Structure formats: C-alpha cells, structure tokens
C-alpha cells in the first residue's frame, strides 16, 4: 500500500466541491482525489499518488535538473576512468617507486 506511483493528470473533475480526476499511470488510468494538490495542479502535470490520493506534484524541471546533474557526474567519472589507465601505464614506465600514492 505504501508505494507511491507517479502518474500524469489527464482530466480534472469537480465532485460536489471535491476535486477528483483521472490519472494515467503508463497506460493504466485511475480515479484519483486531487484535493490536496488542487492549488497548483493542471491537466498534464505529474503527481505522486498514494492509495487513490495525489500527495504531491512532481516538478518536471527539477526532475530534469537532478537527472542532468547525475548524468554529468557520471560522464565526468568516465573521463577519469579513461585517464586512470593512462596514468597507470606512465607509473609503470617510471623507474622510481611512487611513495604515498593518492588514495
């Protein structure tokens, strides 16, 4: 029960002063209560849904930003990996033993 699932709001509906809507979870559509997020929700927004209630809006710009940071971090690491073997082979060629190598 405790797994929150992100989905896309495809329809908003007023049910006697109670904001309900349809949310699409990758093709599966469900009735969801949107009363808790109604102040900043529009059709097309993503929300996190727990047991039939949207508990939070997913900020797409932040989702993109976090992912880009992680991807850049990963690309940077790849560059370091490419440099490491080169540095290692230079060490191997060096006649002098390396004391106190960096951790």
């Amino acid at each position: 029960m405790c797994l929150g699932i992100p989905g896309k709001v495809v329809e908003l509906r007023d049910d006697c002063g109670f904001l309900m809507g349809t949310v699409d979870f990758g093709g599966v559509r469900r009735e969801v209560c949107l009363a808790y997020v109604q102040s900043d929700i529009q059709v097309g927004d993503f929300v996190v849904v727990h047991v039939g209630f949207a508990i939070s809006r997913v900020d797409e710009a932040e989702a993109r930003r976090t992912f880009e940071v992680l991807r850049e971090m990963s690309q940077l690491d790849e560059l370091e990996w490419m440099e490491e073997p080169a540095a290692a082979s230079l060490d191997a060629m060096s006649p002098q033993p390396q004391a106190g190598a960096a951790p």
Partner: protein
Amino acid sequence: MKYLTEYRDAGIARSLIDRIKRTATRPWTLMEVCGGQTHTIVRQGLDELLEGAIEMIHGPGCPVCVTPLEQIDKALTLAARPDVIFTSFGDMLRVPGSDCDLQQVRARGGNVRVVYSPLDALDLARRNPDREVVFFAVGFETTAPANAMAVWRARELGVKNFSVLVSHVTVPPAISAIMESPDNRVQGFLAAGHVCAVMGWTEYELLAAKYRVPIVVTGFEPLDILEGMLMAVEQLEKRTHVVENQYVRSVRREGTPAARLRVEEVFELADRKWRGIGEIPMSGLKLRAEFSEYDAESKFGLGDIRVSEPVECHAGEVLTGKLKPPRCPAFGTRCTPERPLGALMVSAEGACAAYYHLAKYRDEPAETRAAS
C-alpha cells in the same frame, strides 16, 4: 513516463556506486526508513554492490510489518461479524494474527473486501446502508491524508454506517527511538521521500541536530537511492549532520500543506505499539474526540486484548538491524510468504519477503542459510 525510467540508468548507477566507494574512507552504517526503498535496495543488490563502503540496516517503514498484533486481532474480530463489511488494503489480508488472517476469515464466510482507496470503502458504505462498513486505516504519513479525508467526507456526507479501525504510525518518533536505543549502530538516515512529500522535513531538522545524524530525504528509484547514499556518506566524511533533500522533484520543505492540515484536523498523536519493536511514545495517530463516532474500536466495543507473538519469529531483531533476514533460522523453511510466521514475510515492502523473493539471485542457497 518522463524522468522515471531515466532514474534506473545502469551506467549512471555504476558511476554513483564507484563515487560512494571512493568517498567512504571507512564503512558507514545507514538506515533506509521506508520499505519501498528496502525493496529497491535488495532487488537491485545495491547493498551487495556497496559492501565495504556502506552497510544498510533496513528500517521499520513497512506498515504491513509494524501494525501491532492487537490491531490485527481486532480486525479479525470485526471481519467475522455478520453485520460488518470489512475493507482493507490488499496487503493486510495475509498478515498473521494470533489464530488466522483476514483471508482465512473471508474463506469462512466473513465479508472482507479489498479496496484501492479508503474512499472506495466510503462508497461501499453509501451503497450498503443496512451494513456496517469498517475500513482498516493503517500506514504511515503517506496513507494518513487519504484515511483522514475518508473520515472527513463521511461526516460531511452524513454517512453513519462507516467507521475506521485506526493503526497509524509516524516516522520521526521511530527515528528517535532508534537513535536512543543503547545498541544503535545507525550513523545516517535515508528518510522516506513520500512521507516527506506530505509532511515536509522540518521535524527532521530537529532530529538531525539533536542526534548529530545526517538525514537525506530520498526517492525510490535506484539512482535516487544511490544519490541519497552518496549525500549521506559525504556528510559523514565531513562530520556534518543536516537534512538534505535528494528527492527535489517531489518534496518541498513544507510538504503538502493541505494534506498535513486535514491529517491534523482528523487525527491527534497517541502512543502506539509497533509490531516487533514495542511501544513508542506518541508515535501513532488516533481519531480526535470529535470524530469518535467513526472509531470502530469504540463503536463495536473492542477493549484491550492480550496477544503473544510466535517465539520463532525474530522480526524485532530484523527491524532493528540486529539480524539479516536470511540469518533467521526459520527463513525460507518454516517461514515463507505462503506461510508467514511474522508480518515481515508478507508484504513486498517487508525485509524478509524482499530477501525471500530475490533469494534465487543471491549467492547463498536456502540450505546454507538455514544451516548457518
């Protein structure tokens, strides 16, 4: 789905794992609070990939697992009544009570129905005015807004044949209890992203300062969890202890104010027993006095009951990180998801079930585990 599958990128995951290993100058012990995170960690084998850098203790954040036996037995009593339609989230049906579970009560003729949302239970009450509909209101701060709204709506609509059997728990008092336990080993927390989506993280700022422990609000996808781990390890290495938010896309510092408000209007704090752990002061929610007519316990006169757990179940030690599920003598032999001894073997969010379902990917066969 945009920005969901991306957070499962294997290449970036490898890079994060490598970064965590390079950052950690010694092994650190972290706890992920939420069962959803436990599921991802065990399923992806993140704990094994980070061996030597991080030890993960799986926290008590699985509502199915910590709902006390007393409340399960009360649910079984209510579900057996001929005048009651007992409604529950599906994963509570196989939680063992003292004698049986809800599924067995249903097989014997009890009217037990699985609902997706507490509003479905309320609808059922409106469509069956001659029956009493009881909803099993369990869970953490993530289900509390939904359960609070169902009670609120019942009052608004004047529905009299609806009530809730409440067994709500909250995360911050559990973190305090863990940090104050004399044999605590946890040095940093991954806080449950969706609990914080509702509640925000201001309460956690007090905990981080009081216990000098880093707390990282973390999401549920593999990259979320790895980034949360990296942020916690970086804090531990720098000797800082603040609240950071990894799960920026869904969590704001103030949470979701409308949801918090409704929870506070309907519920108040109460002492609550956690299955396998014991009573934690002011760690639960109960209905406020003005909603007492929706309280199934008083409506049906369910008093205090005495219970005893099976001695063979070591759930308490698992929940506090003293025992890994595969090391339990009953794991996979006398305790399986088909015949669980304890609640941790029931739900996919439970640590024992998470290990059991992935045992085939693990290096230790069940026989060795049982023998060791």
